[in-house]
């Protein structure tokens, strides 16, 4: 059992356009009544957050990409466990939603196993980032309660004049929490990250890096060696270089295509609707879905980029983002981005573009979207030179999710991490300096 966070993304095109309205209404109904008996995410301990949205028909050249139901969850631990939980608590709601989708088997209306198979078959691979790894929704809630309890205790005692020795203060806090054993017995146990946790999070990146290293070493050796396998490797190396050069030229020509227009600013009514949906105090949700620029090279490159990024997300820390994911759907013709982040969407988007260090990453991940300002060799120009053009694409592709559930909507990623440190340090063996440091967390 591990505690790594992952994304479960179900992508299911609707049978007909007429169904769009019905499914949206179902999602809205579920959203407005979180205690419903159909799909109550709050009863699934493995679920950290969930979103449901119907994205409309969108043109991709001559083709119309279908109206599609997207159901996303962020979960902690094993996928099997999460899926079982979802079926257990929300099979009626899931049936209600997915019965309007293509390929939904009639048996799934009555059989949980068929429903499960259906959801698995419609699971889309995603590039998932979590700013708060190794913590369950239960722990998020109770660790916040623990922090509040300690803070309240300190507050009351500071009125009376608390002892000014670090160790003594901590002992008083420990005593207070032990006395409240019914509420905080769990807090006496520290959370340890296991080898399995690390392996699930970083294992694929380590394996891929290792394989890449072997391949590169082999290629380097093959330059000077004419024997056996190295001869083949040299041949492979030449083909690889030729392919890279071909893809690079093909991509650059695509970038230079003058027919690709930059997105207009959406009208003010639309902007107002989008802005009004970002009305949560701390954490908000953003879903953007839009077609890519034309050309197979775009689709291929985006998929490769998403694959590579998915390997390194465990190493990244973005303070304003609690979770984010990218999906390439409709055979790579449409990119979906969804995020739970601190503050309103316009500020959130600007947060990245305001810093040089993340500008290139924005181009890398979003530069393939239709209407995005032209990039130069994938990383240059684009949003860096045309902020408004970038904002226009985001706002054009942004959609208001009809269903949103979040267990941590009053806490930022840093708040959650801080709470974990408080819990882990409360009863841990700490030296004088460490106690001082721990007290600063409160």
């Amino acid at each position, binding site marked *: 059992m591990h505690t790594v966070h992952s994304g479960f993304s179900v992508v299911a095109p609707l049978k007909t356009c007429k169904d769009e309205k019905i499914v949206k209404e179902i999602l809205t109904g579920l959203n407005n009544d979180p205690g419903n008996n159909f799909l109550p995410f709050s009863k699934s301990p493995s679920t950290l957050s969930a979103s449901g949205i119907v994205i409309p028909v969108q043109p991709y050249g001559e083709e119309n990409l279908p109206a599609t139901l997207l159901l996303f969850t962020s979960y902690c631990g094993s996928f099997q466990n999460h899926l079982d939980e979802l079926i257990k608590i929300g099979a009626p709601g899931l049936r209600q939603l997915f019965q309007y989708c293509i390929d939904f088997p009639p048996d799934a209306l009555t059989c949980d196993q068929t429903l499960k198979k259906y959801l698995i078959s419609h699971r889309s691979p995603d590039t998932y980032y979590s700013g708060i790894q190794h913590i369950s929704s239960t722990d998020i809630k109770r660790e916040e309660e623990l922090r509040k309890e300690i803070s309240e205790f300190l507050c009351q005692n500071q009125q009376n*004049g608390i002892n000014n020795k670090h160790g003594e203060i901590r002992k008083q806090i420990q005593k207070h929490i032990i006395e409240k054993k019914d509420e905080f017995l769990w807090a006496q146990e520290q959370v340890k990250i296991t080898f399995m946790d690390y392996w699930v999070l970083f294992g694929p990146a380590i394996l891929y890096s290792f394989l890449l290293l072997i391949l590169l070493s082999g290629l380097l050796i093959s330059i000077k060696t004419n024997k056996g396998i190295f001869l083949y490797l040299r041949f492979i190396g030449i083909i690889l270089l030729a392919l890279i050069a071909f893809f690079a030229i093909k991509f650059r020509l695509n970038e230079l295509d003058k027919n690709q227009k930059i*997105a207009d600013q959406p009208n003010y009514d639309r902007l107002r609707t989008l802005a009004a949906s970002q*009305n949560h105090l*701390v954490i908000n949700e953003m879903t953007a879905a839009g077609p890519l620029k034309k050309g197979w090279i775009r689709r291929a490159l985006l998929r490769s980029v998403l694959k590579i990024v998915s390997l390194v997300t465990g190493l990244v820390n973005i303070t304003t983002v609690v979770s984010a994911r990218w999906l390439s759907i409709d055979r790579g013709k449409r990119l979906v981005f969804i995020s739970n982040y601190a*503050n309103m969407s316009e500020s959130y988007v600007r947060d990245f573009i*305001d810093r040089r*260090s993340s500008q290139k990453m924005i181009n890398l991940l979003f530069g393939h979207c239709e209407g995005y300002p032209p990039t130069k060799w994938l990383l240059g120009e684009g949003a860096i030179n045309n902020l408004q053009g970038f904002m226009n694409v985001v706002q054009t592709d942004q959609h208001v999710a009809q269903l949103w559930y979040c267990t941590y909507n009053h806490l930022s990623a840093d708040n959650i991490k801080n709470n974990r440190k408080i819990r882990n340090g409360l009863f841990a063996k700490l030296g004088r300096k460490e106690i001082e440091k721990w007290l*600063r967390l409160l």
Partner: protein
Amino acid sequence: MACLQNWDGKRLKNGYAFYKTKYFMKTIDTTDTQGLIVRGYKELKAAYFMLLHITDKKEVKSYLNSLLDKNEITPGNRQQINQSQKEGGEIRHAIQIAFTSKGFKVLGLADNILSTFSREFIEGMDETFRSQILGDLGNSGPENWQWGGCNTDDVHLMMLLYAKTPSLLADLVIKHKNEFHGVKIIKELDTFDTPESKEHFGFHDGISQPPMGGLPVSSSVSKKYDIKDPIKPGEFVLGYLNEYNQYCKSPHVNSTDDADNLLPVSPENNHFKDLGKNGTYLIYRQIKQDVFNFWKYLKENSKEPVKEDFKKPQIEAAIRLGAKMVGRWPAGATLVKYPEYKDRDKKADIMIEYSKDRLGEKCPFGAHIRRANPRDQLFSGRGGDDSKQMIRKHQLLRRGRVFGKPLVASMHPEDILLVKEDDGVERGLHFICLSADISRQFEFVQNVWINNPVFGDLYNEVDPVIGTRLNSENSYNNDLTCPANPTQRKYKNIPQFTQVLGGSYFFLPGIKALKFIVNFGH
């Protein structure tokens, strides 16, 4: 919106093309900007703001035309200022004019032109969603405003009058009231010249202004701050490159609409004329300050837990806590540089490095100045460069004035603390600031820094001085955490010390643009 497609599509290319032409000027054309962009008229101690509702647009246009003809709208360039507004080479009085979007509409500006202004300006400060962003809730909600709100007459334009002396100002006010026909006065807002540039809580205000580039080196602003890398002028004035090396969205008109050739060609699309050039958005909020209860709270809640601190006079403890809330001592010195009470009278300092106070033990993370301008403290752990880059894109030129008689004439906290009862006088701040992008600058600061309950990894806090405690979920964010050794000091249930009495977004046009607007449709 078809025009915008070209607008954005040719943004960069044309921008560079113009860079090589005479159009591109590194220096702001101060002969065309209204003077408020260049200076806050500090030497003109008396000021008076008239909020007006247009009842007869012809009369208004005629009067504005007469002001323009007589060169009475004070420009930024001192040499260009009308002789009647000068005395011995110094400015004697100044007149500035700003409009709301409703004002432009009543004046007859066409819808297709009006729609090129920013969305925030068009929608206005009292729009429902905007109230959430700005924290205009509860008593500060637009439904309770004295002006500019949903239950008051529309404000169309504002006349800002500045003069060297109160008597000179009085003459000026009478003159314009008598001569300006076709308007109804919605509100007359007086100002008060406080000692030592203090705001009503007793703290030295207006210390740290962003250094704006594009002004002559001899300008007092550039001199005072000795800044090697000033903020690009496009952050504060439309028609110039901003910190992204791009132009902020600027209102524009079709070239054919500008028959008199008053306006410059748009830097981004030569089919348009730039109506925004040398103009900017003016954000105005009248904020009431509850001075008596501010110091009452500080007095009652500033006892320190450590035994020896009990011996310290209550006044000292209250001033310490007040300084923690503001981030400066009343005289202006920052806590980061001068954390000790004995240094409280040191001069105001501008260059603050929060990296020297990473734990927030000198200046709390939630202190007013740390929220209003976080400088190098954002994105902790990555050095200050990312933070500094970001901060440059969220700056405001502040041009505020104080209103109402002080609770105590000296405005010294030591004296304010001796007051036993509130005098009931309405006092506060005319918060006025200028920015080229209302959303990216003013609303961002208000939403992401001032009223953000989790700013700086805090919990349940907003700016302790000006932040709105009531939030959009009808609960309260009213704590303040002061990191300390061995444990932090937490202040809870901090009351609301400020209330918004009214507010509006205005546009402060360039002088040529004003001529165009006044004569549009003739």
